[in-house]
Every structure is written in structure tokens, then in C-alpha cells.
């Protein structure tokens, strides 16, 4: 391992040298290390080779691992997603990049009909990862800002990951690549390079298991269950509520949406008896509905208030700053909902 680290270019040995990394750098290191560890791992996507991808996640990888393991594809989401499935059948471990996650819908049939059903049909598991920049807040307009995770949540056979910290992003991308089933890995572009998220990661190999939520902040009065960028908005709200109202807010970061860590949600509800679900995805059909139902089924008597949700509005994501700001959930929305729950 030691020799390998010296072989690495500087931008992928930050953690090995004890330097802090952004969420984007963490994902890059995770992919790089998996490619070093397992020669079956290879990458497919548009402009990911010499260019290093639209957000530079795969920078330097083609130079190091060659053009047969870092493949620049034509603009063919159906084609390269399906090809990844074929390679996975043959024992490879493909990692597919959607240049923006919004274009994953082009490959919807391949993912939901072919890939997700493969094991069930007797064609074997499809160990592959589909990843890409997701989420709003960057004035990207309706086709460069989406959160399409719930379009896939309803498809048995898929796993869905959406991390909020550099530590989790690295550990989860590694776990996703090693997982025997297909994993959709969402990367929030508003978090990619946020300096506040830089952290020093373990120098040695680690993974974060899929399907386990994490307590982002301990609290006793109200639980917020959330994921991705909304973890940080919730944190801001929690700090304000502590300061202004003396409220103790617990934040559960789901990290993996599918499989959903029901136990972690229920445990927090039993502790605080009040639940707010926050997601950046649109409201109707968002994960809040599923979570509320599970709590209803298993912890109804623990609740001291109705479950609430704060989510994006039921519209396509608009471009103009005032519209996008109005569309996305904000800190003040979370504060208001928590106050309602606390006072109920």
C-alpha cells in the first residue's frame, strides 16, 4: 500500500498525507482507491477521461488507469448504462457517471426494467454504481438541478445513497463499489467544494456500510430526519433553535435511502416524540411520506405531535434566483416547523 501511495498524484493522496478533503475530493479518492484495489473496477461516462469529467471527479484517472478502464463514452446514457450491466454480468465492477444526474432519466428503462430485476429474474446480481452531480441551489435551471432519487426509490432491486459529509461520501462510494447489487449514488453539487465540509479522513482504507443512518447531532426535543444538503440546512436551523429557543434538536442523516434505516428513525422518534422530515426533493411522493407511514406503523404511540415535512414545492425546479430560493426549503422553514412541533 505504501508504494502505491507514492505512485498517486498529489490530488488523490490528500487523506493519505493527513490533509483535509472536500466532499468531491473524498469521492475522487474513494473511486481511485477502489480502482487500485480491484482491477475489475472501471469507469464509463461522458468527458471523464482526459478532461476528468464536468466536475473533475475523475481527474487524472485515465492517465493512471488507461483508456480501457476510464472510458469516454458517446452521449448515450442508455448505451453505456446497459453496457455497464453487461460488463457486470461478466464479473466486472463498472462505475457509471451521469454528467448531470438529470440525464439518468434517459436510462430509466435500462435501470428499472433491466438492471433492477436481473437478480430476481435469475440473471444474477448487477454489481454496478451509477453516480452523478445532483441537487439545486446553483442556478442550474430545470435540467441541471434535479433530485430524482424518488423516481427510483419505488424500484425494488436498487439501492440509493446520498451522502452529506466527506467522510461518508468516501466510505459510501467504496461500499457501493463493493456491493453485490446496483447502487445509485447521488452527489450534491452544492456540497462538492464547500470549504465548511473539508475534513481530515482516515489515512487507511475504510467503508461506511450501506443502509445505516447516522446521528448528525444529538438532541432530545425534536428529531429531524433528512439527508444530503438538507443535513446542513437542518444543522443551521438546529443551532438557531438552540440559541433562540433553547430547543435541543436531533438530526438523523439517512445517508442511504434504500434500504431505509427504519430502526434509526424509530429510535430517534422514541427519544424525542416529535418528528420533522426535511428533503430537498419535491413534496408529493417525497421520502417523508414513506417515513411517516413507517413511524405510523411502528411507533404511533410514541408521538406527541403529528409528523411534519419541509420539502421543495411541487413544481419543476426554476432557474431565476428568487424562484429557486422560494422553491427550495430554507433554514427558516425548518425553524418554523420545529417550533410548531415543540409547542404542540
Amino acid at each position, binding site marked *: 500500500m505504501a508504494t502505491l501511495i507514492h505512485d498517486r498524484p498529489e490530488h488523490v493522496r490528500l487523506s493519505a498525507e493527513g490533509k483535509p478533503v472536500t466532499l468531491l475530493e473524498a469521492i475522487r479518492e474513494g473511486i481511485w482507491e477502489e480502482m487500485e484495489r480491484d482491477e475489475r473496477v472501471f469507469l464509463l461516462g461522458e468527458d471523464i477521461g482526459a478532461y476528468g469529467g464536468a466536475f473533475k471527479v475523475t481527474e487524472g484517472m485515465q492517465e493512471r488507469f488507461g483508456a480501457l478502464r476510464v472510458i469516454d463514452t458517446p452521449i448515450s446514457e442508455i448505451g453505456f448504462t446497459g453496457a455497464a450491466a453487461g460488463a457486470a454480468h461478466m464479473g466486472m465492477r463498472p462505475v457509471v457517471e451521469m454528467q448531470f444526474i438529470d440525464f439518468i432519466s434517459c436510462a430509466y428503462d435500462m435501470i428499472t426494467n433491466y438492471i433492477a430485476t436481473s437478480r430476481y429474474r435469475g440473471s444474477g446480481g448487477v454489481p454496478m454504481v451509477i453516480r452523478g452531480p445532483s441537487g439545486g441551489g446553483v442556478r442550474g*435551471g430545470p435540467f441541471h438541478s434535479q433530485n430524482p432519487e424518488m423516481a427510483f426509490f419505488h424500484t425494488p432491486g436498487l439501492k440509493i445513497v446520498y451522502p452529506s459529509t466527506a467522510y461518508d461520501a468516501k466510505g459510501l462510494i467504496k461500499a457501493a463499489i463493493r456491493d453485490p447489487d446496483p447502487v445509485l449514488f447521488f452527489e450534491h453539487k452544492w456540497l462538492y467544494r464547500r470549504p465548511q465540509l473539508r475534513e481530515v479522513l482516515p489515512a487507511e482504507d475504510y467503508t461506511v456500510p450501506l443502509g445505516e443512518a447516522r446521528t448528525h447531532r444529538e438532541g432530545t426535543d425534536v428529531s429531524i430526519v433528512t439527508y444530503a444538503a438538507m443535513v446542513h440546512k437542518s444543522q443551521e436551523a438546529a443551532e438557531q433553535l438552540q440559541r433562540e429557543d433553547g430547543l435541543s434538536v436531533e438530526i438523523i442523516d439517512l445517508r442511504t435511502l434504500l434500504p431505509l434505516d427504519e430502526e434509526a428513525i424509530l429510535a430517534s422518534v422514541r427519544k424525542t416524540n416529535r418528528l420533522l422530515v426535511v428533503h430537498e426533493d419535491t413534496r408529493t411522493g417525497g421520502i417523508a411520506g414513506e417515513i411517516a407511514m413507517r413511524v405510523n406503523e411502528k411507533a404511533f404511540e410514541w408521538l406527541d405531535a403529528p409528523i411534519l415535512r419541509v420539502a421543495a414545492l411541487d413544481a419543476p425546479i426554476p432557474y431565476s434566483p428568487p424562484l429557486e430560493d422560494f422553491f427550495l426549503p430554507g433554514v427558516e422553514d425548518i425553524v418554523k416547523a420545529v417550533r410548531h412541533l415543540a409547542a404542540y
Partner: protein
Amino acid sequence: MPNQTEAPPVEIPHALVRGDLLALYRYIRLTRTLEERLVNLHRQNKVVGGLFRSLGQEGESVASAFALRRRTDGTGDMLSPLIRNLGSMLVMGAEPVEVLRQYMAKGDSPARGKELNIHFTDYQRGFVGQISPLGDMVPVMTGVTLTFRQRGEERVGMVYLGEGATSTGAFHEGINFAAVQRCPLVVIVESNGYAYSTPTAKQSAVKAFVDKAPGYGVAGEQVDGNDVLAVYGAARRAVDRAREGGGVTLIEVITFRRLGHAQHDNQSYQSVEEIERWASTNDPLDRYVATLLGNGWASEADLAGLDTQVERELDDAIAVADASPLPQDEDTLLDVYADGPVPLPWTRHTLPDPARA
């Protein structure tokens, strides 16, 4: 100017008249200058999202759309542009002030702040706004032109895509369906060397994109995309064929994307010499000016006059767009459905908590 009334020494091709030639010039100049102005506005942070340039491709955008029958009452031909077809949009009657308002995310922009750049629609003037997912507009324009056939209207559709987008499933399914239905559709494939950073050779194994035409059973033509009149000629033939019931034509225009994919892209993957060669020897505007002057179809003074007009028009348009208001918060809720706004839940900050009201 005693010789001004004399017949031009060289005959103007494609049944065009001198006024057409000057109009073509004006549209190309307008496209280029408008984009330059957008760059300044981008630097001033007045353009909110990404900025996409068509430098070196303005000639083919303008000349191809110029072959369409242009109306303002919804009875003319229709096109759907790609991100680099600002010129085609202007030819169809899109106003610079509309484009500026779009880029500046204004509330009175054609898409009312919901969509960006040249992604906007006017069925009266005959353009259908594209979405970002590439290739999608080919099947959509197949449907538009299918309707022309169903209604027996002698109208034609034109759809633009980069060579990169020919790799999509949507392109394949759309052009194939149009071919089978003999839709009056002209498909313009802009072969400009790169799709973002990906060179053409990694996009397709065909030597020329026009070679795809026989595979779909449609007519094909390849044309020098930086020769304005040659592009017009090819588009004219394809449009006439479509109108006469001859079905689909795929036109491959050979051109070059001289700037990055978008304003943020530093073009590290392109060779400086290659860009410089296209800029110095194969610029569509330079070549067109040389043709106009060389054949005696226009004078330096004619062109300078048009340049001044364009500058003035854009000064005015920018002032108007700059003064335009941003959209109102509640506009977010409108136009999701026909029957009124989508609901605004009380958990969002604008409404009071009902428990406290």
C-alpha cells in the same frame, strides 16, 4: 457612387436578392455581437447561469433557418434549435431583448424566469424551446411535422443537433420515425469537432455523419458550414424537398466550435493551432464579407451601416432587459398545471403556522 445602379457583376445564387444577402449579414453580425455583449453581462454577474457561445458557427445557424418560410401568425415553418443556434432563433424572429431577459433570469423573459438561455418557445413565430437532454427535440419535431402532414399543411420543420447528440437513442428513434412517415423534416447535424471535450472520433465510427442518412433511408447532404451561401443552398434544397413531399433530409454542416463548451470551459483538450487556423482562415463572417465585397454584392459602407445599427439595437435591448424586473416569489407556483397554482404548504416560510394563527 456613379456605378451603384449598374447590375452586379456576379449573379447571386439560389434566387436570393441583394436584400436577402444583407439580411443574412445582419443576422450573423447580430448573433456574434449579442453573444459578445452577453459575455460582458456574464462578467458583471448579470447573466446568472451558464453562457454558451456559437463563435464560428453563426453562419450555418443563420443561413439554414433563412431557408424556412417565416411568419408571425403560426402558419409558417418551425424549427427547434440547439444551444448554439442563437442565430437561427433570431432569424425566426426572436428578439435580442428576449434572449437577454432569458439569460438575466428576468420575470418578463419568455420563460418567465423558469428556464434559461435560448430555451424558449413561440409557436406563432415558429420555434420550439429545447430542453437540455440532448436528442429529445428530434422526436418532438417529428411530431410537429407529422401534424403538418396530417392536416395537409405545406409546412416544414427543422431541427438542430450537434454531432455528439447523434449518439442518443432519441435521435435514432426520432429520425427513423420521421423517415417512415415521410415527415417534412430537415435534420441539421452540426459537426463542430467536439462534444464538450469529446472529439468526434470518440462519438461515432462513421467517417462523415451524412453517411448515417442512407441507414435511415433519408436524403443526405454534406456542406461546408462556414460557407454561408452553400449552407443556404443545401437548406433550400432540403426544405423544398420536404415541402414537396420528399420527406426527411439529414444535412451535415462541417464547422468548428472555436470556444469552450460553455464560458467556464478552458478548452484544455483542444489544440491552440487548430482553433487559430479556423479563426484566421475559416471564419464564416470573414468569408461571407469577402464574398459580398468580392462579388460586388455589398459595399464596405453597407456593412458598416448595418454594424452600427446592430450596436444601437443591442444598446437599447440591454438597457431594457437590465431594467426588467426579476420574477415574484409566488410565480414559482404557476404554470405547473392549467388550473391554477400548486399549493403552498404552511410549513414553507411565507405562511403563518396555523397552530399559532
